[in-house]
């Protein structure tokens, strides 16, 4: 049985890690390479980097970060933020990322999902979607709407429908990031996570809102998530990853025992 994954998320702006609270006040919490190494050693199962100021001039800085991380950590990590073309994806994968995460770019141009899957394999393509509860209506029957551009633009697209479309187009994994919960520490949005996870055959990653160990337990049980993204809950040292895993193991959730071994 697969272990439930804990995935620290590092928002990177101009080569430095920040954590957006509701995508507003950004608090600088450090150097991405040092933080990646720290989480790797702590037993993180995977990492995700979001380039939150992705622009063409800045792309080079991010690629340097990816390169440096790939030389030091030997668990999978994905990179997202502003990836729009196959060339963007290729550059990040060649620099050493295991997966690319696409978000707003995929909503604007869904073909990028299938093109990416064809070129690099579905396992490389993570479709990240920001969702917000905006009320049930004909166009948005689930009541959860896809939003893009850091939560600023409403698309009128139903989140569940978009998840299915993403799977059909070849995404290998889905990240469900709740805008309502992001930065609130009130817990993941279990309802949308579960509804999507139970209706697709690819892994689903819960994101947005983790503030306590119970929130992770809930994501993995009631939310039916395969993995959970964590940020502030781990970034400020309040709940180190080993503590989270100890708690989850005690709650009956299968997690990976990170082992330390002398290798040379």
């Amino acid at each position, binding site marked *: *049985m*697969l*272990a439930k*994954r804990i995935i620290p998320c590092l928002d990177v702006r101009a080569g430095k890690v920040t954590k957006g609270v509701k995508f507003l006040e950004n608090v600088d919490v450090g150097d991405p390479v040092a933080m990646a190494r720290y989480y*790797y050693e702590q037993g993180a*199962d995977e990492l995700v980097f979001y380039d939150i100021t992705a622009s063409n001039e800045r792309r080079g800085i991010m690629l340097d970060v990816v390169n440096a991380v*790939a*030389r*030091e950590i*030997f*668990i*999978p990590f994905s990179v997202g933020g502003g990836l729009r073309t196959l060339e963007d994806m290729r550059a990040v*994968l*060649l620099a*050493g990322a*295991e997966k690319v995460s696409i978000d707003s770019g995929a909503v604007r141009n869904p073909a990028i999902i299938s093109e990416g899957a064809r070129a*690099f*394999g*579905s*396992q*490389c393509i993570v479709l990240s979607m920001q969702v917000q509860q905006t009320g049930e209506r004909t166009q948005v029957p689930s009541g959860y709407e896809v939003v893009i551009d850091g939560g600023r633009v409403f698309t009128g697209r139903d989140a569940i429908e978009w998840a299915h479309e993403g799977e059909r187009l070849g995404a*290998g*994994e889905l990240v469900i990031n709740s805008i309502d919960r992001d930065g609130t520490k009130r817990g993941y949005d279990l309802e949308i996570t579960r509804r999507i996870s*139970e209706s697709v*055959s*690819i*892994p689903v990653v819960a994101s947005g809102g983790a503030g306590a160990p119970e929130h992770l337990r809930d994501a993995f049980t009631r939310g039916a998530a*395969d*993995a959970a993204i964590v940020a502030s809950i781990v970034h400020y040292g309040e709940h180190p990853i080993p503590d989270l895993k100890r708690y989850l193991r005690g709650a009956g959730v299968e997690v*990976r*025992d*990170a*082992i*330390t*071994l*002398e*290798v*040379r």
Partner: protein
Amino acid sequence: MIAIVDYRAGNLTSVKRALEHLGHLECEITDSADKIRAADRVILPGVGAAGATMENLRALGLAEVLRRDVAAAGKPFLGICIGIQVLFDHSEEDSADCLGVLPGVVRRYPNSVDGRQLKVPQIGWNRVRQMQPHPIFAGVPDGTHFYFVNSYYPVPADSSLVIADSDHGVPFAAAVARRNVIASQFHLEKSGAAGLKLLDNFCRLSF
């Protein structure tokens, strides 16, 4: 020199980075038959589909090199992920005829087991049970988690080839070995300290 076989797939550089991190600096990503023949050890890594992998290996003239000059010649060989699957006779993926170095076939994970949905591809960390002592696992506790990314799994015709197994809805061979040929379904280069340990062990094995 350790040759990392370049057959135009992804994930080649991460194996090289891991080897370099371990201090095995003499490694090269190559599609040269001569270099592969001259190498002390050969690694066939990567992610990809069986059909495309076999097509590329054949087009590059490497399928026969791997069969004859590596596997049959006793050269230490390590297959990772798609690199384990193409060792067998045939894969359900793309109905591909594979290298036939080991007897058996490669099947797709079922979409459901006992009415319960199974996520395919298998993406994540799964517990690996060591079925028989093998030096590749030296120093690694039984039951350690390794990182898997696959939709297909090998079914060896000879169960004595299986040195470790795991379970994703169905039990499957997670690692196989026969003399100089060793292969794993999981990504050693992405499995943290335990994966690095296996990679390091491979680099030190002699037969």
